[in-house]
């Protein structure tokens, strides 16, 4: 009888250990999320272009927003983010010698047209495949850096059907790059990688 009880106790203990998510402090958490090996940050190299497609869990977003803000309302923000998923799509030249907005641009008009595309029209070329659903962005922001760095970033958010607390299925982010003629760029995030991600130690 004692043996049975000890086996059950061991099984419960093992289950509770595996069910509990690992918690990491801020810098280690960011390191984990951005580390390619953990499957949440995908790098796609096409010719001389580098695309980085980062899935940002809500903890990641909140940690970045709260930096240095002691009044940050974690609970309200967490509720706002429920049911949504967010990504960064960054791109740059491999040599990092010129801003993508200026690359091969022959006139100011062409530069403005490119900037205008990224400010206003790029979302129509972005989609998220979530299970069998194809979702268009509900929010989009082009993080213009005024050519201070040779990398540009698009921040894009999607509403998940049913608004679950966390994604329940594999996700595939698709961006159709018509500007630099790189075609479709895809990044798949498996549910295993998403589930395996630690939580932030707030």
């Amino acid at each position: 009888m004692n043996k049975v009880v000890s086996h059950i106790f061991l099984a419960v203990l093992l289950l509770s250990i595996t069910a509990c998510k690992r918690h990491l402090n801020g810098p280690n958490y960011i390191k984990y999320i951005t580390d390619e090996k953990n499957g949440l940050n995908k790098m796609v190299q096409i010719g001389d272009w580098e695309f980085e497609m980062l899935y940002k869990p809500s903890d990641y977003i909140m940690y970045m927003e709260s930096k240095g803000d002691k009044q940050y309302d974690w609970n309200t923000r967490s509720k706002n983010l429920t049911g949504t998923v967010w990504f960064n799509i960054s791109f740059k030249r491999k040599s990092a010698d010129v801003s993508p907005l200026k690359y091969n641009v022959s006139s100011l008009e062409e530069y403005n047209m490119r900037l205008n595309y990224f400010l206003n029209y790029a979302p129509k070329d972005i989609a998220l495949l979530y299970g069998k659903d194809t979702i268009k962005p509900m929010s989009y922001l082009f993080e213009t850096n005024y050519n201070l760095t040779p990398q540009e970033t698009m921040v894009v958010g999607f509403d998940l059907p049913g608004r679950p607390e966390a994604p329940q299925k594999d996700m595939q982010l698709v961006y159709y790059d018509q500007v630099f003629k790189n075609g479709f760029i895809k990044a798949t995030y498996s549910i295993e990688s998403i589930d395996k991600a630690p939580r932030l130690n707030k």
Partner: protein
Amino acid sequence: MNRPLIRTLVFCVLLNIITGIVVYRIVSHLNKKTAVVDVIQLCDQYNLKKELEAHEKVKLEAINAQLDSIANKFRMAQATKNTEEANKLGNAYGYLKTQLQNEYNQGNKEINEQIWKRLNPILEEYGKRHELHLIIGANGMGTVLYNDEYFDITKDVIKYVNKKYEQGS
């Protein structure tokens, strides 16, 4: 154990290790092989190409619809003997037809450039991973006249490049 005996033993062990490494290098070098990929099949079954073509098709169909509409108006103008209108429409039809052809050619060129920009590094990576000396592209133009299945890795390569494309790594 005396010192000379230990020295001889160490020497023998080292010699064995070196011989082992040399033999391993030679054998692994000999195991490297040449493989053949059917380039047409590879391109046709590359998901990126299928998707780019589907996207291009929408654009071409829009121009084609315009072309059909002008052709109908042109026929009507001819039937009603409205020469001036028929001439105008004839010119517009010629212009649009050239535009369609140009769009088609340009689209094909861009698709080819885009898929080879992606395929080249993936094929290089595949070759290194599978320790191949050489990958020959068979394209139906007579570069490879015959190869048996032993050398044909087309199916495996198609699977590999599509996995890379879909996963984004």
